[in-house]
């Protein structure tokens, strides 16, 4: 992108230095150590705590991505990742379980983003009802282990269904399935120990995959936006069904949701957790919930790890290349002999299976499942993760999930809490800082105007747009600047407290992201090529041998 010859730029020199594994390792080690040190020294009593935690915790979350992008040898990378996720994160989690909760949710959403990435990113099938498969997984565990009075608990007598004198369905009885609250699950006549939870993860995978195929079958002929709308409809149907199946036979407990869902036993982790806490000098008043969180954390990253392996294998396999072919040009793919039906169904099923697995986990973690968790907005959220990270790439999906989840649950929340804390102590922002902020915002807006007018090829029009935009911005900024005085945060109107406007910020970020980096933060090489064809030519050496992959004639082998 830059025109500076690489040998002269100091940036390039640093970059060359960083390419040395040893130096990179040192830098990374220092980075992680610094982040850990900062995080473990944060004090909740500090007025500025929300701001610090808002800035510091993401450093830890992004560390694995830095490791992955570093020039370290594979073994060292794996070891660093294991240390980061297996040791550092649990330590932080014991210190403050908020971070553990965030990591669990990031992992759950990572799994969802990875699954959706298979459907949307690999195979190019826009799915707006993806959350339905998550719901299927969550309900399969919740229905059997909830203490709610579903027919599985109370037994049920199906009265013969007669409408207008015609018997449609003959009556029958379902025997009550007593769900023992003490570590036993009874399904029909089979009694299972609570460890059956792990079995249910597989059931979740299976059932969701079946649901994926059921969705896939009717939509095979559809493409693009039609596919989007049908999948959206499918997602809504599943949600409304779960909402409605509370009567006449109570299967899902309807809108009330299923509460008291069982959790797999985590008592074996209490002692280790307490031990580590002791070493760290932290006293855990309530170790049991932390132990259970720890279990869910390891389960979640385990599932994510498996999905990553699966996605990687698929992407580099004939199947993955068939998906790419479908995504790029369906007609050409058929002509080349790609088995369209099988490949599309496989994509839907694989993507759905990922969601099903974490769905089971989610139900157990929350101990409560209700239809309102599976709304269209959640589907859109996951899609946003995939796209923010970079469609078609595994690291991209992970990064997208991390960023969006962090933003939603951590950064924006803490930002609001920080403002609130400052209100409480009647903090005054000096006019100088306000002025600086205004100047920065103005500069940003000018930059946006500059960038967004790049695509106008008519030079005169481009100049006019830029001039008008800049003049308007500067006049507005000037007007605002005359009004700047020391600002008491407490004077901020209560209607505008930022805790109410998280989506507002999220919306702006999405638009900016699309304007400036539509290929996502960590784009797959191919996607990058599609979006910046003329720019990436200079960086051609960075792009893996795409051409070779294209010419590889292995569709035939894949069949």
């Amino acid at each position: 992108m830059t025109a500076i010859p690489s040998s002269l730029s100091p940036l390039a020199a640093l970059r060359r230095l960083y390419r040395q594994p040893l130096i990179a390792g040192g830098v990374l080690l220092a980075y992680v150590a610094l982040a850990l040190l900062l995080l473990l020294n944060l004090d909740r009593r500090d007025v500025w705590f929300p701001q610090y935690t808002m800035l510091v915790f993401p450093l830890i979350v992004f560390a694995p991505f830095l490791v992955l992008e570093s020039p370290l040898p594979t073994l060292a990378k794996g070891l660093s990742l294991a240390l980061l996720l297996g040791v550092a994160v649990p330590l932080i989690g014991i210190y403050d379980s908020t971070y553990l909760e965030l990591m669990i949710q990031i992992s759950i959403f990572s799994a969802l983003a990875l699954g959706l990435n298979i459907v949307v990113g690999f195979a190019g099938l826009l799915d707006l009802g993806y959350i339905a498969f998550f719901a299927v997984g969550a309900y399969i565990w919740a229905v059997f282990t909830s203490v709610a009075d579903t027919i599985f608990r109370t037994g049920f007598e199906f009265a013969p269904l007669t409408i207008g004198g015609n018997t449609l369905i003959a009556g029958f009885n379902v025997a009550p399935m007593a769900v023992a609250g003490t570590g036993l699950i009874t399904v029909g006549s089979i009694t299972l120990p609570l460890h059956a939870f792990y079995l249910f993860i597989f059931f979740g995978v299976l059932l969701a995959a079946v649901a994926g195929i059921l969705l896939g079958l009717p939509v095979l002929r559809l493409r693009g936006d039609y596919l989007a709308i049908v999948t959206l409809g499918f997602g809504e149907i599943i949600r409304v069904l779960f909402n409605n199946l509370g009567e006449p036979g109570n299967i899902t407990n309807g809108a009330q949701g299923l509460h008291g869902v069982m959790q797999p036993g985590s008592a074996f982790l209490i002692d280790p957790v307490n031990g580590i806490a002791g070493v760290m000098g932290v006293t855990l008043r309530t170790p049991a919930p932390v132990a259970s969180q720890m279990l869910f954390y390891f389960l979640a990253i385990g599932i994510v790890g498996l999905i990553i392996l699966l996605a990687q294998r698929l992407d580099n396999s004939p199947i993955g290349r068939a998906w790419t072919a479908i995504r790029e040009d369906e007609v050409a793919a058929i002509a080349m002999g790609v088995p369209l039906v099988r490949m599309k169904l496989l994509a839907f099923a694989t993507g759905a299976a990922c969601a099903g697995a974490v769905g089971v986990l989610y139900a157990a973690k929350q101990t409560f499942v209700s239809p309102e968790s599976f709304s269209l907005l959640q589907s859109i959220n996951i899609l946003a993760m995939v796209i923010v990270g970079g469609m078609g790439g595994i690291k991209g999906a992970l990064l997208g999930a991390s960023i969006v989840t962090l933003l939603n649950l951590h950064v924006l929340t803490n930002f609001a809490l920080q403002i609130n804390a400052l209100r409480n102590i009647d903090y005054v922002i000096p006019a100088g800082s306000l002025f600086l902020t205004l100047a920065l915002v103005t500069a940003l807006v000018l930059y946006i105007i500059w960038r967004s007018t790049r695509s106008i090829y008519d030079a005169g029009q481009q100049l006019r747009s830029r001039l008008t935009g800049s003049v308007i911005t500067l006049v507005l900024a000037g007007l605002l600047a005359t009004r700047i005085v020391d600002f008491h945060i407490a004077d901020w109107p209560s209607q505008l407290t930022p805790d109410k406007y998280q989506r507002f910020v999220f919306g702006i970020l999405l638009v900016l992201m699309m304007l400036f980096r539509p290929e996502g933060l960590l784009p797959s090489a191919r996607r990058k090529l599609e979006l910046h064809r003329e720019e990436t030519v200079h960086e051609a050496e960075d792009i893996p041998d795409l051409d070779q992959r294209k010419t590889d004639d292995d569709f035939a082998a894949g069949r």
Partner: protein
Amino acid sequence: MEARSPADWMYRFLLFPLGQMLAFIAGSAFILTLLAYGIALLFPEPRPNIVLADQIGRQLPGMVISGITTGFVYAMIALGYTMVYGVLKFINFAHSELFMVGSVVGFEVFLVFSAQAMLLTWHPVLLVAIAVLSAGLVSGLLAVTMERVAYRPLRGAPRLVPLISAIGVSFFMVDFVRALMAITRNDFNLTYPLNGVDWARAPIPLLIGTTTVNLRPTQIIIIVGAVLMLLFLNYFVNGTKLGRGIRAVSQDMTTAGLMGINVNRIIALTFFVGGAFGGAAGALFGMNVGTVTPFVGFFPGLKAFIAAVLGGIGSVTGALLGGLTLGMIESFLNGVLVYFPVFGQRYTDIFAFAVLILILIFRPSGILGEKVDEKV
């Protein structure tokens, strides 16, 4: 091609579209009535003391009128989706927020009317026209701004990119309007000051056969307003030079550009017209419902989107057909499902979606959608 006789003009821009609307309404009403009676034949008494055929007979006029009103609102919103899709092949996810903005502008306009005591002294037609036009204007301009800021720089990017940008715009707009209303009105539920105003609220009894149906005046306003605006749109798209530009760009943007059409201007115009229709629909909807919120756009927007796909996205006639059909289907489902306790009205949306999926399976490009040639 041009220079036609007045009779021909009348036919093309008045009689034909009107006939089309009537045919769509009558057709869908007829088919659904047949279906409803068919169900009544199968299940004469779905619940004790309920004779389904009798109930349907009693409800029929009401269901049809309700279906038409809902249908026209859907159709007007669906137009925005379909026109933008026609030229850009892109779903403007934020279109539902243009509808919302229209309904909020309508509220503000009526508030002014109310404060100036114009509600009872000025002629209702004038008041409604001012409100609808200003809502349309604001929404239209907003749509153009939206296109300029958030979509135009992304033209040529893969289709998911502008879609996400549109989702961002949608989030932003909802909270922006919410903040604006919180500051200026200190409220969230924006209630049109029409309660107690007779021309808007006094029911008009209408005797159909043996049953009396109480029509709300605002339902008539919706129907008349929508028909007028749809006629205008038909004229605009098919009878004017600008309209020809829109059609040209939607067929082939590059060639249209080479032929000397200012593509950017035409796209902006399309956004303006689509947004204006969404905004106008919002004001009409607001008058009818009485209360709007910054979140009001989501469901009508979603339904209209479905309607657009149902009719065949990209086709203006298709949007009309899809909107009316969907409105009718919903109204009939609500009217009939109630007698089947196993389902009930809570299954209306499921059945509506199921109809959509079925139609798309058998006609993947919608009822009126053209079969697009595959690129090879």
